[in-house]
């Protein structure tokens, strides 16, 4: 009897516990907090992150995100697959890791890096649960380094943070960079998918193109916002990449610390049979130090040094998940655009012109002894051009004056000094007044990023950025330098007080294409600080007049009204299988952009179609006197520019652009192309169909002509069309 009542009591207690636990679990689920699950020796914490997505975190650092359709995104590759993919123990650890820390021994005279993985058995992991996040502390006991990683999941967005103060170095081993979630979303070619990366206009590495890649497959590393230097590098404007695996996809975006990050893209076959992409956060940079012939032991005469101090910069990456119809690069662009607009990281300019015109006013030709001025368009000629355009009805345009200052387009001048070789100040003022009278947006091109050796008012010693090795950052000819942030701001101030008086906009060269850190003692700044300085200049500039920026680095989008020199393709690196208009899809409807000048097109029909597909504002770069005088100048890429030759084409293109005004202020929500046909859908549900093929294209009863386009509104009416009759 006693035993029976005891059992009943026990059962009652258990029942109470179960009821209580259920109640707690229900409450926890309602408030998006974690629930604890027992699983094969490890504790798991599960989050219901909203939007139907769920995340599960394990105490050992592993985690997964489950999509509403049941697809699981795992932080590392699971044990079974790891065994199949590689026999190498290091690679097995790498594949299972959430972070990979690359370090070096600061006591050694020779610089050498090694990498340690968070899945290594010697790494001690402790997990601390929050309401919607899990904080892991990885202690790499072998190198006396610990790294805190906070992974959160809220509103369907996964965030991964590495606070700067979470990196602790207790010995001679110093952290150089950390790769975050190196195998998150990694998949092989049995999946239908691709990796989207933002090189140039954007590009895809498609899983099914495995066969076309050469045997020596390699990981490509892209420096976000361009490399620290003067010369051109890959143009990586946005700190994002995306992975699509069948009906699921995610877009990863760096929210904090993007200026110090790289994007890694690895095709299947680059060591392991997985396509993968990840971010790397740099905490220290390397630089070459030349050594004298006496002390150098190596033949190159240089040795590699690394920053002694850790670049204390917080890092946060956000992962936006997409599924089914949205699981594609259009969905990735849309979700990122929404994120930028919600967080006011991108401008929404209401003034979007039908056409943009650059007028190259002057250049200088370097001779052995002196420089020769080359005037291609005088101020009065430019004024006459504006009047002609007005006469033709083309007034809804931006006009940029290029090379209007002393020594023309290549030179950079401190202050605001119209070049007297192009006309008097009176003529210059008259030109600006004519533009203002005709409601033409006039922009003056200036360069506050770099300067030539011969630039008026420039001192290489005081105004330049310095490298880590103590040398001034310059090109191989010692002729071009990068302005340090103090000088850049000062030069801008001197210019801007005059520009404000004339109510003109500014066209910023290189501001959205390159970013450089500065090691000088007076102006020391990291890439992040340099980006802030540039952003501040743009903020000031936007207070008066229009702002145009070359390139589209994220930190410029907040203030830019228009972007120029935006590429129509990627830079064609080894993992490029297809070019896509990713940057265009993000910016379209918010910030307008121009690309290659129409007068430089090699195939005007095809490239005009491409221009429409990618949503560019048509751009012409012209001169009054033709470009033969530019032959031996730095502007000799302008191979055909005579206004009288291109006037009719400009007016025609203006009319074409004006016809498409209904889609100028809407977003680009969907894009698809098979190389022969392209379809672009806008947020007002109108759709542009473009036919690149040699035969007419039938689209539900309507025919798009050969080499033509057709814009159809949401009700199915044709708004505009063009092209050869089939």
């Amino acid at each position, binding site marked *: 009897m006693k035993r029976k009542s005891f059992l009943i009591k026990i059962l009652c207690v258990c029942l109470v516990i179960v009821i209580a636990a259920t109640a707690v679990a229900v409450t926890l689920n309602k408030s998006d907090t974690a629930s604890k699950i027992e699983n094969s020796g490890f504790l798991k914490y599960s989050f219901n992150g909203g939007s139907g997505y769920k995340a599960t975190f394990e105490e050992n650092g592993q985690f997964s995100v489950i999509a509403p359709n049941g697809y699981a995104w795992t932080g590392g590759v699971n044990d079974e697959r790891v065994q199949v993919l590689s026999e190498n123990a290091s690679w097995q650890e790498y594949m299972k890791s959430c972070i990979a820390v690359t370090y070096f021994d600061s006591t050694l005279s020779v610089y050498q890096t090694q990498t340690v993985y968070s899945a290594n058995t010697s790494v001690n992991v402790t997990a601390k649960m929050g309401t919607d996040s899990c904080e892991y502390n990885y202690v790499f006991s072998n190198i006396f380094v610990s790294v805190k990683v906070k992974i959160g999941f809220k509103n369907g967005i996964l965030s991964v943070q590495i606070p700067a103060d979470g990196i602790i170095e207790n010995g001679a081993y110093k952290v150089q960079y950390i790769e975050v979630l190196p195998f998150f979303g990694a998949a092989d070619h049995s999946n239908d998918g691709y990796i989207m990366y933002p090189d140039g206009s954007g590009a895809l590495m498609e899983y099914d193109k495995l066969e076309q890649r050469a045997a020596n497959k390699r990981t490509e590393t892209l420096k976000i916002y361009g490399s620290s230097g003067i010369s*051109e590098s890959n143009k990586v404007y946005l700190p994002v990449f995306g992975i699509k695996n069948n009906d699921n996809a995610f877009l990863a975006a760096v929210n904090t610390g993007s200026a110090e990050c790289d994007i890694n893209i690895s095709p299947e076959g680059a060591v392991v049979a997985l396509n993968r992409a990840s971010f790397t956060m740099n905490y220290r940079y390397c630089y070459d130090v030349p050594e004298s012939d006496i002390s150098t032991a190596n033949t190159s005469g240089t040795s590699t040094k690394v920053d002694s101090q850790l670049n204390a910069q917080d890092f946060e990456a956000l992962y936006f998940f997409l599924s089914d119809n949205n699981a594609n690069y259009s969905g990735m662009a849309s979700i990122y655009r929404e994120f930028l607009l919600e967080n006011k990281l991108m401008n929404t300019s209401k003034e979007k012109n039908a056409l943009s015109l650059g007028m190259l006013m002057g250049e200088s030709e370097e*001779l052995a002894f002196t420089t020769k001025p080359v005037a291609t368009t005088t101020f009065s000629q430019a004024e006459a051009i504006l009047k002609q355009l007005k006469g033709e009805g083309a007034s809804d345009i931006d006009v940029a004056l290029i090379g209007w200052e002393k020594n023309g387009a290549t030179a950079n001048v401190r202050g605001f000094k119209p070049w007297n070789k192009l006309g008097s100040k009176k003529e210059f003022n008259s030109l600006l007044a004519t533009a203002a009278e005709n409601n033409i947006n006039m922009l003056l091109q200036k360069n506050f990023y770099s300067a030539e050796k011969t630039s008026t008012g420039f001192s290489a010693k005081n105004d330049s950025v310095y490298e880590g090795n103590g040398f001034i950052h310059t090109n191989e000819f010692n002729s071009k330098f990068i302005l340090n942030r103090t000088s850049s701001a000062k030069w801008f101030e001197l210019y801007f007080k005059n520009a404000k008086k004339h109510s003109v906009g500014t066209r910023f060269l290189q501001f959205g294409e390159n970013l450089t850190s500065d090691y000088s003692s007076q102006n020391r700044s990291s890439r992040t600080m340099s980006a802030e300085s540039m952003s501040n200049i743009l903020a000031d500039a936007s207070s008066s007049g229009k702002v145009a920026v070359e390139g589209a680095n994220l930190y410029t989008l907040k203030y830019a009204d228009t972007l120029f020199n935006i590429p129509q393709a990627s830079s064609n*690196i080894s993992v490029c299988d297809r070019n896509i208009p990713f940057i265009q899809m993000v910016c379209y409807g918010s910030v307008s952009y121009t690309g290659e000048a129409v007068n430089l097109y090699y195939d005007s029909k095809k490239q005009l179609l491409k221009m429409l597909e990618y949503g560019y504002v048509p751009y012409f770069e012209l001169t009054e006197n033709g470009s033969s005088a530019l032959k031996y100048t730095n502007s000799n890429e302008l191979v055909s520019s005579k206004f009288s030759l291109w006037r009719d084409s400009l007016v025609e293109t203006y009319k074409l652009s004006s016809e498409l005004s209904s889609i100028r202020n809407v977003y680009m929500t969907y894009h698809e192309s098979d190389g022969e046909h392209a379809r672009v859908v806008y947020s007002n549900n109108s759709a542009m169909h473009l036919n690149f093929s040699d035969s007419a294209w039938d689209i539900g009863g309507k025919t798009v002509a050969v080499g033509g386009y057709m814009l159809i509104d949401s009700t199915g009416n044709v708004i505009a069309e063009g092209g050869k009759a089939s």
Partner: protein
Amino acid sequence: MKRITALLLVFLFCGMICLPCSAEENNYIISDDKTIPISTSYVNDTVLYDFGGRLNSAQDLFIDSKDNLYIADTGNNRVIVCKANSKDIIILDEADGLQFNKPEGVFVDDSGGIYIADTGNERILHFSATGKYVESFIRPESDYLGETYLFNPSKVIVNSTGYLYTIKSQTIMTIDANNEFRGYLGQPDVGFNLSEALIRIFASDEQLKALKKREAEPYINFTIGKDGLIYATSREIGSEIKVLNSVGENLYRSSTAAETTLFNKIQSTFFSLFNIGNYASKSFQFGETVIRDGKQSTPLFTDIAVDGNGIITVVNSVNGMLYQYDNEGSLLCSFGKKESDSGKIELPSSLAVDSKGNIYLLDAVQNHILVFSPTAFIKNVHNAVSLYNDGDYSAAYDIWESIAQSSENYELAQIGMGKALYKEKNYYEAMQQYKKANERVLYSQAYAKYRHDIFRQNFGWVLLGILAIIAVLVLLLRILNKTGKKGIECFGAKYSGKKTLWQTFLLSCNTIIHPIDTFRSVKENRDRLNLFFCVISFVCLLLIRVISLYCTGYPMMTADTGDINIWLECLKLGLPVATWGLSVFFVTSILDGESKVGEVYTCCIFSMAPFVMLTPLFTLLSQILSRKESGLYNSLQAIMWVWILILLIVSVYMLNNYSFGKTMAVCAISVLIMALIWAIAFLFIAIISEVWGFVFGIGTEIRLML
């Protein structure tokens, strides 16, 4: 025998299509070592990569007249035949019971016969158009081939008479249809090498034995044109591209590097000092020299393709760029690899062109074929070249004009327009076009014709002008004579005390007509000379030199105005004048001379009087001369310098009272001393530079350590 495999969707444009991809942006021409961008000429929009599996170190590519594609897939020991407009692939991998072994070359004749260089098996194989094995060509038996002769054919072509050609290092071996050896073609001249000649003079017998035999540069690749000529690439500097006729003569242009022999170099350096015959002309080389990490790499053209119009395209494996030339050797365009284009072009091994003008580039590392399609711009260029070659100058002009509008800096268009205008006897317009293209030689030809027309139309005025010039010259001489006499008077006994600048100037004028009297006066007034005159005159000399360089007539200029280095030109004139005085003084001081520094320099400056008088006249004369009259122009300049030299010798003779023999000896030694002074100065500058580099290096290291 052969294996025919029908594979669906594996060949025809199964590669990715990227429009527009970045490769088309890197388009330019090279004019006088300067890179000038032009309109996009070729666009790479297709990559072929799957031919029943990937290629493996493929070494050769051929496209026949029906646009069928043949690939020597060397690493896979096979030859692939891809039929145009069909998805079929034929694979040839064995013949005569023997598996192919590293075949490196493939060629197809007009009847469709396929010839394969089965390199590893030391044989050339002949298959029919249907892929049926026909015959083998093996090492021919011949007394001319030594016993150790190795027959390892890597490339093969066949001409219309059935002769087979294969590259054998620096020559091309010919074999007839009966497998008989028919000799070698195209053996280049080894040439003279001064350093080697010197070594051979002074080397011991043992050292001579150790010296390697110098051989001509080898051929790299070749093809045969529709005209039956052999188009080859070679490592020979200056003749990297050759067009050989049936007896092996090179009919194609050579680069300026080939024309620059050691003698030419010495000659041009010597004459450039005196500004004689050193006319500005465009330098030319095939391809371009690539500088990477401070190292220069000359072009290495791994293959050559020629289309039906004789347009030649070569690929440089050093920089992954393709260069296209017309039949006269003018560069039409260069395109190909971009710096950021990592991985698409790594080791280009072969090149072919199809009937539509598409260029196929085979890469041996990437194991794919890039297809470059011509744009409207380059198609227009080809069309204009073809029309000009056919003699339809008027039609060619119209096309060149449209090309010039779409690419204003495209020199070939300007030259083409100039040539067409010249043929139409519109010489003045032709001159303007040639000037735009900076073609001085062609300009000079047009100018000579133009001048002829002008002179004929205005013969009376021209005659009158010549008479006026003669009168002015006579008058000038009379003035000089009068002025000189006054100068002698001023330096006579009547005028004591230090000489004024004006008096010295008057005396210097006398050097032209009465040099001996002048130098005697200098000697007699050695303590009363005005040395400031020397300084002013020296500056004037330099000014005259510089002004003449800028003002010389366009065809006769020594350099483009933008390329004139004023400091170098001043140095070229000033250094000999300055060091001559010094060395003469040194030598005469030792050899019982009487002269002092002041009078030596004064005489030296006086001796330059012909330069001061004649250079402006020559500059004026150059305005009406063309390069046809360069002989006259050079002779006049040479006479001036000889005159100056005689004056210098006379001055030494007069100032020191030497005998004629001793004067000549002193002058010769002075020239040697001058050379010694220059050598020491050069060494000094080099040492200073080294020391500075050393101190700077140490300083940098210390700064970084701190």
